[in-house]
C-alpha cells in the first residue's frame, strides 16, 4: 500500500491502479511468453513524472516494465518479475512537426493512427513497417527496429535524437537534443548520435531494458504526388530475389514487399470469414508488390524513368517477371494496397495477423535475400514434422536498403486459447529457429525464448552487453527477465 501511495503522490491518484482486471490486461499478449502480473500500473503524463517514478523504483528495488503500445506481439512488456507497469499511453503529444527539417517530435503514447493523420494534414508521411496496428506506439516500433517497407532511402532509420529516463531515474537527452535549453536552441535535435557515446544505440532493440524514452525526434517525409503500384505473381522465389537484386540497387520504387498467399489473403480480405479462404486458395504463391512514386517535383517524369528502366529489365533480362498494376484476378487490389501500405491497419477491423485464429507467433530474422528460398524450405520441413500445414504459414519478405539484406517473417497462426496447439507452435518455433540460425539467419531482435538461443551463441556479445547493462542499471530494475538480463 505504501508503494501505491508514494506513486500516487507522483502521478496522481487516478493514474495508479492495482485493480485485478487492470493488471490482467498487462499480464499477457499475443506471444507465447508465459503470463506475468505486476503489482501496480502507473500512468505518468510528463517526462518529469516518468523520471520520478523510475527513481522511486530504483531506490526501492522495484522492477519497472515500460509499456507504450496497446497491442503487443513479442512478450516484451509482460512483467516477468512483478514490479510496476509504467504505461506511457497518456503521453500523446505531438510536440512539433517541422516541415523545414522534415522532423517530428512525439511522445511514446503517440500511435500510428494519430501520427499518420497529423502528418497527412501537413502533406507529410512516415516511413512505416508493414501495416502496424493503429494503436501501436510509433516510438516503440522504431526503438524495436521494426523494418520499414520503404527500401529507397539510403539513410535507413528515421530515429533522431530523443529524451529518456535512465534506469537510475535521471532524465537525459541524447544526440543533438542534449544541448542545454532544448528545444529552445539553435539545435533542432536532428542528430541521434552522442554526446560522448552513442547512447541511443543501447536503447534500440532493448525491449525496454535500458531506459524509458519520453520523447523522440523522427525523420518524416513529404507525401508523394503520384503513386503507381506494380504487382507480379511469383512462383519462383529465387527468381524474384534475382530480380530485386537487379532493380533495387537502381533505386526503383518506394515500398517494395514480398508476401505469400496466406499473409496477402489476410491483408486483402474485406470480410475475413467470407474472403480469406478463397483468397488464400487463389492468390499466387508469392506476390511481389512495388509502389513507384513521383515526389515533389516533376513527379510524372520520375515515374516515367523508373518505369522505363523496369520495362527494359523485364524485357531483356527477366521475361518471367510480369509486373502489372494490380493482383491478377483481383481487380481493385492494387489501388487498395497503395492506400493500405501508407497507413496503419484500421482500428475498426480485426488485425490482419490475428483475424484468422485469434493468435499469431511470428518468427522473423534478418537474412541474405539469396537465402530466403532455403529458409522457406527449412521452415516448411520443420513445420511438416510438427503437422503444421505449410499452406497455413504466413510468409513475408521485406527487402532492406537496395536489397542488401531482408527481413524475413514466418507467421504461425493459432488459437491462443488452445494450450495444446500453442505447445506445438512453441516447439515448432524453437526448432525452426535453431535450424535457421544454423544456416545463417540472424535473429537481431531475439524476443521470448529466442533470446536464450541467441545469447548462448553470442558469448562475447552477451558478456559485453551484461557489463553495459550493469553500468546503466546496476540494480537490474528495468524490465528484468528480457533478453539476457
Amino acid at each position, binding site marked *: 500500500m505504501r508503494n501505491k501511495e508514494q506513486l500516487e503522490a507522483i502521478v496522481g491518484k487516478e493514474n495508479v491502479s492495482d485493480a485485478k482486471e487492470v493488471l490482467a490486461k498487462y499480464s499477457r499478449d499475443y506471444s507465447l511468453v508465459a503470463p506475468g502480473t505486476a503489482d501496480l500500473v502507473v500512468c505518468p503524463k510528463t517526462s518529469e513524472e516518468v523520471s520520478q517514478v523510475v527513481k522511486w523504483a530504483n531506490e526501492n528495488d522495484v522492477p519497472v516494465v515500460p509499456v507504450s503500445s496497446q497491442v503487443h506481439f513479442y512478450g516484451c512488456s509482460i512483467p516477468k518479475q512483478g514490479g510496476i507497469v509504467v504505461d506511457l499511453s497518456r503521453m500523446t503529444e505531438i510536440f512539433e512537426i517541422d516541415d523545414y*527539417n522534415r*522532423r517530428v517530435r512525439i511522445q511514446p503514447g503517440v500511435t500510428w493512427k494519430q501520427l499518420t493523420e497529423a502528418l497527412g494534414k501537413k502533406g507529410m508521411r512516415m516511413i512505416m513497417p508493414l501495416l502496424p496496428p493503429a494503436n501501436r506506439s510509433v516510438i516503440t516500433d522504431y526503438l524495436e527496429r521494426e523494418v520499414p517497407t520503404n527500401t529507397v532511402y539510403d*539513410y535507413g532509420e528515421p530515429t*533522431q535524437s530523443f529524451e529518456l529516463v535512465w534506469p537510475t531515474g*535521471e532524465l*537525459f*537527452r*541524447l*544526440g*543533438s537534443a*542534449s544541448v*542545454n535549453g*532544448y528545444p*529552445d536552441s539553435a*539545435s533542432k535535435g*536532428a*542528430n541521434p*548520435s*552522442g*554526446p*560522448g*557515446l*552513442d*547512447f541511443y*544505440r*543501447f*536503447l*534500440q*532493440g*532493448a525491449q525496454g531494458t*535500458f531506459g524509458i524514452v519520453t520523447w523522440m525526434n523522427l525523420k518524416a517525409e513529404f507525401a508523394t504526388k503520384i503513386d503507381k503500384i506494380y504487382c507480379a505473381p511469383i512462383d519462383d522465389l529465387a527468381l524474384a530475389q534475382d530480380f530485386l537484386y537487379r532493380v533495387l540497387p537502381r533505386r526503383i520504387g518506394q515500398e517494395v514487399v514480398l508476401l505469400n498467399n496466406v499473409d496477402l489473403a489476410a491483408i486483402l480480405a474485406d470480410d475475413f470469414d467470407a474472403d480469406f479462404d478463397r483468397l488464400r486458395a487463389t492468390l499466387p504463391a508469392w506476390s511481389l508488390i512495388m509502389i513507384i512514386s513521383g*515526389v*515533389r*517535383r*516533376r513527379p510524372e517524369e520520375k515515374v516515367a*524513368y*523508373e518505369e*522505363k*528502366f523496369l520495362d527494359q529489365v523485364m524485357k531483356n533480362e527477366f521475361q518471367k517477371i510480369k509486373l502489372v498494376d494490380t493482383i491478377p484476378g483481383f481487380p481493385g487490389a492494387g489501388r487498395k494496397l497503395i492506400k493500405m501500405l501508407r497507413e496503419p491497419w484500421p482500428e475498426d477491423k480485426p488485425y490482419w495477423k490475428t483475424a484468422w485464429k485469434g493468435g499469431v507467433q511470428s518468427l522473423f530474422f*534478418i537474412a541474405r535475400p539469396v537465402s530466403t528460398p532455403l529458409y522457406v524450405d527449412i521452415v516448411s520441413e520443420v513445420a511438416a514434422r510438427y503437422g503444421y500445414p505449410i499452406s497455413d504459414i504466413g510468409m513475408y519478405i521485406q527487402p532492406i536498403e*537496395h536489397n*542488401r539484406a531482408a527481413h524475413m517473417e514466418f507467421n504461425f497462426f493459432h488459437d491462443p486459447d488452445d494450450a495444446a496447439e500453442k505447445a506445438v507452435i512453441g516447439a515448432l518455433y524453437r526448432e525452426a529457429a535453431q535450424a535457421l*540460425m544454423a544456416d545463417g539467419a*540472424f*535473429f*537481431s*531482435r531475439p524476443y521470448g525464448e529466442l*533470446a536464450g538461443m*541467441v*545469447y548462448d*551463441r553470442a558469448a*562475447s*556479445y552477451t*558478456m*559485453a*552487453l551484461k557489463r*553495459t547493462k550493469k*553500468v*546503466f542499471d546496476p540494480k537490474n530494475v528495468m524490465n528484468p527477465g528480457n*533478453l539476457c538480463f
Partner: protein
Amino acid sequence: MAISKEAYNALESAVGANFISDDPAVCEGYRSGPGGYESGLGYERVMTTIPAVVILPRNTEEVQRIVKICNRYKVPYVPYSTGFYGPRSHCHVENELLVDLKRLNDYEIDEKHLYAVVGTGVIYSPFQQEAFNHGGYGIIGGGGAQASVIANLIGDGWSPLSHRVGLPHRRILGTELVLPDGEIVKMGSLAVGEDPFWGDGPGPDLRGLLRGFTGLRGCLGIVTKMAVKLLPFQPEKLEPTGIAPNTALALPPKRVKWINFQMPTKEAQVQGMVEIGHSEVAGAVTKVPLFWRAIAKAEDKEDFWDIWGKETEETIKNFHILRVLLIGFTSEEQMEYDEKVVNDIMAELGGISRPTKPSDESWLKNADSAGMWLMCGSYISVDYIIESLSQATKHGESYAEVKRKYTPPLMPDNGDPGWFQSFEMGHQGYSEFLIYWDQDEDTNGVDHFYLETSKMNIKERYYTSLLGPHQPMYLTGPKYGPNYHIFMLRVKDEFDPLWVCHPPVPLAHDEFVERAPWMKALKDWETPAEFPMPKW
C-alpha cells in the same frame, strides 16, 4: 624510457621480433608533431610524447594478446591506424606502447550485398576504387582518402556525399572490437557467426560503444575488423587523368556531373539546399567556401596568398556557390530528371550555373584534405557538426565572431563563415569551421580559441563535435545531457578499470587545461580535486 623486460618479451613472442621495436630512432618516427593535424599547439606539446615501444600486429588474435599482456604488466597502450588524426592519436604518457595497426589490412567485398570487410590498416582510396570496380561507392570522410576506413567510421566520417547518408554510424555492419581489457566483442551478425553482413544487435546495439558523435580517440578499445556499407553507384568508369599535381577523375558526362551554381544571396544558397533535399535528388550538395577555390587554383603557397589577398569582407559576403553532384544511379534518364529538377530550383532562386569541369579532383576518390595545410602550415577543423540545416546555416557566423578576437594567430580570412551543406536529403545539415595558423608563431591564441568555441556552443545552444575527449569533459558534461560525462566515464571505468587504454583519454583535454599555465585564465568551470582516473 622503457617497459619491463618481461612485458617486452611477452609482446615480442606475440608478433615476432621483426614487428616490435624499442629503438629510439624507430620510436622517434612515431612522434605526433611537429607537423600535422592540430599540430604545433599546446595540446600536442603538453600532452604527447613518443612511444617506448612500437608493435605491429597482423590480426585480431595478436591484438587481443597484446592488450591482455598490457593489462597484465600494466603497460599503457594507444591504438594507431595511420596517425593522421594528430596528437590525440599518439602516445600521451611515458613508457607507453604504440599499437600500429597498419598490418591489419585484409579486405573482402560482397558486391551483391553491398558491403566490404576491412581491417584497420585499409584506407579509403583503395576501398573506394574496389567499390567502384564492383558497382558501388563509399563516402570518403573529409579526413581524406588517406584516412583509415575503420578509424574514420568510428571517429568522423562525412563528406558532401553524405547528402545521401549522413551519419557514418549507419554504415557500420558486423564489427570486431577488442575491449580495453582484452575481451573481444563481435557485433551484429558477427556475434553469432562468421557472416558480417548485418550490424544491429543482437538486441541492444553495442555499436554504441564504438563512438559518440565524434570519436573516442581509441580509449575504449581497438576495432580490428569492420564490414562497411557500400551504396549502389552507377556503371560507367571514372578514369584518372593527368600527371601530379594536376590529376583528376574524368567523369562520364551522362552519369556523373558536378555543377557549380552561383546564388544571388546566402538565403538563396540555403534555400537551394533545402529544396534539393526536399526534392530527393542529387548525390552531393555543398557550399564551397571561397578560399577552397583559391587553394584549387593556386600553384603554391605564395600563389594562394596572391589570390586570397585580393578578397575582402565584401567579396566573401557576396560569394555564394552551391556545388551539386548529380549521379545517374538508375539511368541516364534519371540523371536528366535530377538535372531538370535542380535547374527548376535554380530558376526559382536565381541561381546561375557556372562552367564546371567534367572531372572530380576531390570527394569522389581523392578527398583532398592535404591541401588544407598549404596556406599556413597548420590546420584543424575546430567544429564539424551534423545537426539540422537550421543550425548549420547559422553556426559559422557565431564562429566567425569568436574568431575575429583570435586573428592573429589565426589566418586572416575576412570573416569567412566556414562550410555548410545538406545531409540526408535535408533531414540534417552540416557545418564545419576550419582554422589555420603557423605553428612557429605564438599559438596560445589557438588553444584559447578552441576552448572559447566550446563555451560559445554552450552559450548559443549549438550541438557540437567538441564533446567527449575533444574538449574538457567537465566543461561540456554538465551542459549536454545533462551530465553525459558521468555516464561516459562509468562506461570507461567498467571496460577499462586500469585506464590502460590510451590514458588519460577521455580526460586528456581536462588534464591539458590543468597542466598548461596559459589555459588557467580560461578555466571557469568546476572540476573535482582529482580527476577520477588512475595516474600513469
